[in-house]
């Protein structure tokens, strides 16, 4: 049983110091920007919540947000099951396990801009292999012009890039399940599918929680790979919220707007993550999974 002791906060001081430095000060600065408007020649002017209102009313924002939500939902739906399936298929012992671990982990180790660039080359109409393969099966693939092609390529790229994270986490989680549970399920006559649902999945809950949260957060903020692959196009198909943010902040010098957008963006991520957090940590346990263990 854990002990109740408020002095535990002392252990947290180093962490809090480091994070506070990085978290609060920049945050305050952004908040500062968000409630002001910088007029050329006149300096900063307080505008209260105007910037926030502008953001929320902006069609571009609403569109980008909608696309973003769709994108994040889609990749979660693909990557989590796929990652778990891959983990189930990976060997557990021997050199094959090492080879599998290293191979599967490779996409995670590539700088994100390189990922974007590789996929760019991969998908270019003139020199890319993907259009070539599609052409062989009779489909004219064109990432620059076709909204469908662009969107699904972006999804595919993210799946390629990040499924390994779920796979590695799930792999470790799987290996932590004692054999006895599977043995008991065999004795009880459970089918493989049923065993998966009552034994495997519940015991993967913790690793999957962190995997899902990480993927949600990162996918919601995705920028560089897409920017290099499609530039947000064609049109606005693959332009999600980050893209809008960068345009306004860097391209348009609308810093107040950008700051407000940032905060709204941040807030949305926090809220949705918190919902995920609550749901995932309470699934199947109806209450806190703390304490009382043998």
């Amino acid at each position, binding site marked *: 049983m854990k002990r109740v002791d408020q002095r535990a906060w002392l252990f947290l001081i180093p962490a809090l110091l480091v994070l506070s430095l990085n978290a609060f000060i920049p945050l305050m600065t952004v908040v500062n920007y968000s409630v002001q408007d910088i007029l050329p020649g006149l300096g900063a002017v307080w505008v209260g919540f105007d910037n926030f209102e502008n953001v929320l009313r902006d069609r571009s924002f609403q569109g980008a947000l909608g696309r973003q939500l769709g994108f994040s939902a889609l990749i979660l739906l693909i990557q989590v099951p796929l990652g778990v399936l891959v983990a189930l298929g990976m060997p557990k012992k021997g050199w094959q396990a090492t080879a599998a671990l290293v191979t599967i982990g490779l996409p995670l180790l590539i700088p994100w801009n390189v990922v974007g660039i590789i996929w760019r080359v991969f998908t270019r109409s003139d020199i890319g292999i993907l259009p070539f393969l599609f052409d062989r099966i009779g489909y004219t693939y064109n990432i620059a012009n076709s909204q469908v092609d662009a969107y699904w390529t972006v999804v595919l790229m993210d799946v390629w890039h990040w499924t390994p994270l779920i796979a590695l986490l799930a792999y470790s989680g799987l290996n932590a399940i*004692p054999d*006895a*549970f599977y*043995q*008991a399920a*065999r*004795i*009880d*006559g*459970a*089918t493989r599918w*049923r065993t998966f649902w*009552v*034994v495997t999945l*519940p*015991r993967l809950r913790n690793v999957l929680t962190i995997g899902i949260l990480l993927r949600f957060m990162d996918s919601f903020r995705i920028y560089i790979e897409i920017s290099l692959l499609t530039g947000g196009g064609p049109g606005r198909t693959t332009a999600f919220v980050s893209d809008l943010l960068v345009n306004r902040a860097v391209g348009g010098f609308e810093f107040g707007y950008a700051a407000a957008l940032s905060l709204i963006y941040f807030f949305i991520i926090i809220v949705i993550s918190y919902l995920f957090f609550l749901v995932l940590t309470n699934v*199947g*346990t*109806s209450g806190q*999974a703390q304490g*009382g263990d*043998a």
Partner: protein
Amino acid sequence: MARIELSGVSHRYGNDEWAVRNVNVIWEDGVASALLGPSGSGKTTVLDIISGLLRPTEGRVLVDGRDVTGMNARERNVAQVFQFPVMYETLNVFDNLAFPLRNQKMPEAEVRQRVEATAEMMGLTGLLRQNAHKLGAAEQQRVSLARGIVRKDISAVLLDEPLTVIDPQAKWHLRRQLKALHERTGITMIYVTHDQHEALTFADRVTVMNLGSVVQTGTPTELHDRPHRPFIGYFIGTPGMNLLDAQAGESGVSVGPLTVPYGADVTKRLTGRDALQLGIRPEYVEASPQPLDSGAEASVEDVDTTGHSLIVHARLGEEALKVTMDEAASVVRGDTLWIRFPVEHVNLYSEGERIEVDA
């Protein structure tokens, strides 16, 4: 209810050492048995072979005379309880118990009836709606056990050191429940453990294993009083049996100055045997500060107390032995004690094997 037999069973994992060697054991229908041995003796392997989780490299498994070696765990209809509680954590107790039945596609009404009956028998009725993971370890093991016996016509209940993670107070209760369960249902039960106390209190028949082989099978008393190997003498009983180097002479077997009388027919058999050893339990050694007929003197080197008895470390000739004496006996280091070995409690061993003698 079933008679389980292992015939010529040997098993190795991959290309490792043989974990189990040529095991031939019969567990009669309805008997509460224990499989006792130190870690690594192969007892869990044997259990897994019985339940069908493992297919033996060699040998056959027979249930009621039928060869079931090829059958898997589900088909053999056994229940197995593991060292730590194995629960389906997302289900409540009722659903946990119902799990095996539903997998068999039993009609729900029947499922309910069996679950409730089993819960009642195990004292779990009040917990049926609780979430499995909220229970303490002892209760969880009871649920595991209940889940094992909820199915109809279970052939046997196999328990693999089920009390390992249970608190000491709860252990006693759970042991009694197991015994009560056996008395009530008459199911064949096989209890694997390294704890000889658990084995001897639970079982009517005990099979002792060491290094992959069966050393002896018998009732607790037989194992305690007449172990076939010195190893069993050590392993069972606290303190373990005394093993003393002995010589065969004309009138009997001697350990230093003390001779245990045997008839000529016995002594003739014994002379010439290598490595003769005499085994006697500390509690059966007769000891007294006053001289004993046909006894011998031993010097007391140390005295331990266990709280309700004394363990006297004495030296008889060149051999050291332990004697259990009543607390009230006033014996101290340096004393002289008269020792005698009653012949009915003496075990003779040559080259590690027991010699049968008619006392």
